[in-house]
């Protein structure tokens, strides 16, 4: 079954392109951007055909608008507060709901206190086109495992495709390159939002620039990009240091 | 279209309005003073509407469509009673001078007048929170629009199956040079010193709408109202006949269909 799809995987398609005929036996699992049209499977979005290990076939489209899907990790922003739920903007068509008890260790008495505007890193628990998406700050086992209220830092917006590639394993070249020489915290949401924090604002900005510029670059190009950015910033840092020293000297002279 | 300047146009009339409308007790169209124009009433004229009616009094031609009772379009406060919304519109060519775009003050007044005439007749408690939308289009305004529209609208409400305490019949009277004219035409009411429109629930003799203009002495007014009430009584039988005919026709149609189905 997977063999039938093999020759289409990795190809660029656009809406209306026939991906494959339905096999006479067996099951084909399809994801976003693929629809059954009679006897064939057809692409409904422009992008690259991908196949997951389980055989699921989807079209990876370069998309800005996020459509929630179960098990996605997202960076959301609290929009409103209710007794049982938080309303969260995840960039989808509708607001998503984050139950106040969906945090590790939360009880009716001991619940997290989030304010509208706060950022959370969470997981999409359920998503259905007719219902509001349900979020959770716990993994399936009920552990926090990294999901939390994001304090400080800043958020940059990227395409959903880039977000997915940043989350891929092994890590994207740009991230490993940055990680080798800088210290920073990072949370990537599949909704195209990347949260960043670092001890120095300069680092945050450098990382943000690197990530946003890396979308259409090969691994080698990404390495080069990071190298160039780091060089520029260290040069700038040296210059700044020199200026400070000069100023101090001048003050000392006076 | 856009950007092109529209030159203003002005109406031009081939004929003047007549200065005299009565001669020797006979009106322009040959009627006697207390005679109606030819009256034609029919219900069920609009296939899409819940209820509808067409009324023709001489040159005055009015069509009414009723939709509902349905959910109120505008968000209105909660009410145990239903609402009747009336919108009266004159076709642009219905009057001597071409009508303007948008609702004219005259249309607004007609809408309010018809609404008042109907509200007392309908059992508003039978459709709480909902509204019955009554849309009236005057195809030709040949005089006495308010009365004709109210009569037709009541028939349309009845056709829509909305519960009514009674039907509403309405007619107009004009006073021209001291004579009282029943069911005046446009030319006649243009020359009137006084005019009135009366809407009645005929069974209980209840006035649901009374509008007058011009100066009336007490006795003139009493005479005028009596004439109007007499007119309403004549209309009542025509209106009831119209509703009966509709029921008979519907029954006949159903029988026919059943026969067809059996065959």
């Amino acid at each position: 079954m997977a063999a039938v799809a093999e020759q289409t995987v990795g190809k660029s398609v656009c809406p209306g392109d026939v991906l494959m005929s339905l096999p006479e036996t067996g099951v084909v699992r399809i994801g976003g951007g693929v629809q059954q049209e009679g006897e064939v499977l057809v692409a409904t979005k422009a992008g690259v055909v991908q196949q997951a290990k389980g055989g699921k076939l989807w079209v990876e489209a370069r998309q800005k608008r996020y459509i929630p899907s179960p098990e996605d990790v997202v960076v959301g922003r609290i929009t409103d507060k209710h007794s049982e739920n938080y309303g969260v903007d995840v960039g989808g068509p509708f607001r998503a709901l984050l139950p106040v008890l969906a945090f590790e260790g939360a009880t009716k008495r001991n619940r997290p206190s989030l304010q509208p505007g706060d950022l959370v890193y969470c997981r999409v628990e359920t998503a259905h086109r007719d219902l509001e998406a349900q979020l959770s700050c716990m993994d399936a086992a009920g552990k926090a495992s990294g999901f939390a209220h994001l304090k400080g830092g800043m958020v940059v917006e990227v395409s959903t495709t880039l977000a997915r590639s940043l989350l891929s394993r092994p890590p994207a070249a740009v991230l490993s390159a940055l990680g080798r020489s800088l210290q920073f915290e990072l949370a990537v949401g599949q909704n195209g939002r990347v949260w960043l924090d670092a001890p120095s604002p300069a680092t945050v900005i450098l990382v943000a620039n690197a990530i946003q510029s890396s979308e259409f670059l090969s691994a080698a190009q990404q390495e080069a990009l990071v190298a160039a950015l780091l060089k520029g910033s260290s040069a700038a840092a040296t210059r700044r240091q020199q200026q400070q020293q000069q100023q101090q000297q001048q003050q000392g002279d006076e | 279209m856009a950007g092109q300047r529209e030159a203003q146009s002005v109406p031009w009339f081939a004929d003047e309005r007549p200065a005299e409308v009565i001669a020797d007790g006979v009106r322009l169209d040959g009627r006697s003073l207390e005679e109606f124009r030819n009256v034609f009433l029919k219900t069920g004229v609009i296939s899409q509407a819940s209820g509808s009616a067409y009324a023709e009094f001489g040159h005055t031609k009015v069509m009414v469509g009723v939709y509902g009772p349905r959910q109120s379009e505008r968000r209105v406060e909660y009410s145990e009673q239903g609402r009747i919304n009336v919108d009266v519109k004159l076709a642009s060519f219905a009057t001597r001078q071409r009508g303007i775009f948008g609702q004219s003050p005259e249309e607004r007044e007609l809408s309010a007048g018809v609404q008042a005439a109907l509200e007392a007749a309908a059992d508003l408690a039978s459709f709480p929170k909902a509204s019955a939308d009554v849309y009236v289009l005057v195809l030709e305004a040949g005089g006495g629009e308010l009365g004709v529209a109210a009569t037709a609208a009541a028939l349309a409400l009845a056709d829509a199956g909305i519960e009514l305490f009674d039907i509403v019949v309405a007619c107009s009277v004009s006073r021209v040079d001291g004579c009282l004219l029943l069911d005046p035409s446009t030319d006649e009411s243009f020359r009137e010193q006084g005019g009135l429109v009366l809407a009645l629930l005929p069974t209980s003799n209840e006035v649901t709408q009374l509008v007058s203009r011009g100066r009336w002495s007490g006795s003139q007014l009493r005479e005028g109202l009596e004439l109007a009430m007499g007119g309403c009584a004549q209309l009542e039988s025509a209106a009831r006949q119209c509703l009966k005919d509709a029921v008979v026709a519907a029954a006949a149609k159903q029988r026919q269909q059943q026969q067809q189905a059996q065959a």
Partner: protein
Amino acid sequence: MERADGRRPGEIRIVRCERGLLSRADGSAQWTQGGTSCLASVAGPTQAPTSAKEDAERATLEVVFKPRAGLVGSTEKQYEALIRRSCEAVILAALHPRTLIQVVVQVVSDDGGVLACALNAACAALVDAAVPLRTLCAAVSMAQEAGPEGQLLLDPSAAEAAAAAAVGTFAYLPLLHSVSEEVSAAGDSISGGDLQLLTSLTRGRLTSDQLLDMVEAGRQGADRLAAFMQQAARQV
């Protein structure tokens, strides 16, 4: 027979398509055919702002057509309706119920065939926004020259359209394209070389034969545009 700008009768003006020009929109595209150019942007699927625009079963499509200058008149309303109904035919609206997809088409320059250009721009922008589509949709304009010797002109300029006896704008669904060789036969049997005329608007007088020739020639022109649109869509 050459045309005023040196084209042959069945030749389309130079076509360009740029995607993703607008950062605020969820998708955008500028489609240019010779001197006519339209910029389309897509926002959505988003939550419908009013219940009037909300459909429990499918996404609602809203199209705004903005002329280069001047007020929006009934011609623009007609264009909006035609673009909306044509796009509705290709959007898989049931996938995003209760949402609103807004398409705004801004005319950048108009040298004839602006409706066809606007339709193509709207379709390319929908692809850019990754709104799920059944297939692409491509439109052309056509002109029939006056007189017995009059020729059928593909993609006429404004001057050609003004001088013509009749003009028409037609949108078609392109034949299903298969990426894998083995199913291409199946794909062909689905479309079967059909005309696949989705939308049509004509003005002026034509004979029956002229109309049939026009829609057929339009189909061939639209296929070329669709191929170009596919190519543009595949470039990531």
